[in-house]
């Protein structure tokens, strides 16, 4: 049995999200160095503001401006910042109740060390030099030696060129491990052999194997070499060029039942004009130098397979 394979895998996606009226005013306000909260029917000022009362679910729209100074309600010292966190050097995570607000905002506090941070300490916003209308327009908080300032003031939430959406990039890094069955399959492929696994219960041979028979729910363990020749069971003609794919259209993509397999796999058909590919066509894999899998399948020249020979695999 080969070693379990592994490879780096990056999952990266920019989420584009629209903002409601309250979130839009809040994030636009940050761009303009103005912090807005929203007042509930019960008179509480929520910062950061939400569009619905977290207690009553009532729609809330009454904006109010609060101070850029506040008080730490709890904190946690982060000795080893992780990628994409607000500060690259050790900092404190803080919940800060801004002056005029009744709830707390999560952010980072720049401080020389944990001994300088305590619940109840006074802090103020350090604004980012470049602001776009995002929570990161607050670069972080910093210690502030000043008393709590005045009461919240009504604000109409109107700004020129309001921010109506945000794009938040997200990247997660993984080390992908395909597991026992797929590692064995990939290992065999690297030697230009195609190896499936047989179900001990229904005796079907699955290619590629996934480790379990989806019909019987039992582990497939007996390895079975299949092909290399097979039969086109069904196909389609691709007429639209895929992005970043260096391949002329039209071309044929087909389901191929390899000899000895009970499940068709799919691959491109080459070496034959696209309009001559047919169900029952006998094909074989074409390997390219250094390729990890067959580049495509081409006709073998054998007579076509009889429909009854592959109808169960359609």
């Amino acid at each position: 049995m080969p070693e379990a394979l592994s490879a780096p895998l990056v999952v990266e996606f920019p989420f584009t999200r629209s903002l409601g009226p309250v979130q839009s005013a809040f994030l636009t306000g940050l761009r303009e160095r103005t912090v807005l909260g929203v007042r509930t029917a019960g008179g509480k000022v929520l910062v950061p503001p939400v569009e619905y009362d977290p207690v009553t679910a009532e729609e809330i729209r009454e904006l109010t401006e609060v101070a850029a100074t506040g008080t730490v309600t709890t904190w946690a010292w982060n000795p080893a910042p992780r990628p994409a966190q607000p500060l690259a050097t050790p900092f404190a995570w803080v919940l800060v109740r801004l002056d005029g607000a009744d709830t707390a905002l999560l952010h980072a506090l720049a401080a020389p060390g944990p001994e300088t941070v305590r619940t109840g300490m006074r802090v103020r916003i350090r604004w980012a030099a470049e602001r776009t209308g995002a929570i990161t327009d607050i670069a972080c908080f910093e210690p502030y030696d000043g008393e709590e300032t005045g009461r919240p003031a009504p604000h109409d939430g109107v700004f020129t060129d309001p921010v109506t959406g945000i794009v938040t990039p997200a990247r997660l890094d993984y080390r992908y491990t395909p597991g026992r069955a797929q590692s064995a399959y990939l290992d065999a492929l690297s030697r230009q052999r195609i190896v499936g696994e047989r179900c001990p219960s229904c005796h079907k041979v699955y290619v590629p194997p996934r480790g379990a028979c989806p019909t019987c729910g039992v582990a497939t363990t007996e390895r079975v070499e299949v092909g290399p020749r097979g039969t086109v069971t069904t196909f389609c003609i691709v007429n639209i060029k895929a992005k970043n794919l260096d391949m002329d259209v039209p071309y044929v993509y087909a389901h191929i039942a390899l000899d000895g397999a009970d499940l068709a796999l799919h691959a491109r058909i080459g070496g034959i004009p696209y309009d001559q590919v047919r169900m029952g066509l006998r094909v074989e894999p074409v390997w390219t130098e250094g390729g990890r899998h067959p580049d495509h399948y081409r006709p073998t020249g054998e007579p076509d397979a009889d429909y009854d020979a592959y109808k169960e695999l359609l």
Partner: protein
Amino acid sequence: MRDVAIVAFAQTDHLRHTDELSEVEMLMPVLHRVLDATGLRTSDIGFTCSGSSDYLAGRAFSFTMALDGVGAYPPISESHVEMDGAWALYEAWVKIQTGQADTALVYSYGKSSPGTVRDVLTRQLDPYYLGPLWPDSVALAALQAQALIDAGDTDEAALAEIAHRSRTAAADNPHAQVGGPVPAGDYVVRPLRTGDCPPVGDGAAAVILAAGDTARALCPRPAWIRGIDHRIEAHGLGVRELTESPSTRLAATRAGLFRRPVDTAELHAPFTSQEVVLRKALGLDDSVNVNPSGGALAANPVMAAGLIRLGEAAARIHRGESDRALAHATSGPCLQQNLVAVLEGESAHV
């Protein structure tokens, strides 16, 4: 209401890495064990429900491939939640209550080893105000822990004692990832040290639910679900009182916890400080055996650790070691959402 019981439970050994196994390869043995324990086949199961998250291993639609391990042909009645399996169990319990099924297979799995779970879990947060700051799961738990210390509810020594008690109990749990005491260690995010945090690892679990006489036929001493409820709090951390868990309290009330004392509690508290919050909310005193399995501090396969609390509590009833047990599961940052179930052995129900 129909009487519904947990009649079988199985879990994997929880490991830091399972590189040689795909998710379905990791899961399949526990599915077979619960089926073997009851003598049921897939075709006998009325409803199948699972809980998992593709973000953990970065493998899209892994839950559909996990179904290969069930043997879902001819087509079965099936559902999935992108949550801990405890919530899959809740859905299955509701399904049985509707009368549409008499038995259910519930499973969940989590493979955290391929990714960095602290970062992965930031993607479940509010994407406007929290997500862009990437506050990791330990950081958020540490903010809650400091709030508890400030309120006088605990201190670092008391947290270390919770860690010690949990890992000592886990020495008797053959499935635990961490069995036996571990050093308190350095701060991960102060005030939480390595000893206050759960191990990162991979694992899976499965249970079978059955109603009424079916349950009695499948299991000598079914663990009857006398009450089950789950409640959620606001997503804004700054809106919540982090030293309290009103959602746990309300779920426990509705599950009937406070009608009679329990002898055992399996709490899903991945961080030591969260046990402090839960004990307060649930009113647990020293008469209750809390986390005899070692809890999530001994093994925390994300998405399965909550279902395992239900399974561990049920298994103690199956073995006659408990008559009335509480099982709890949590989801989201700082105990945002909580599920409470009260389980009883037959003789305890008068």
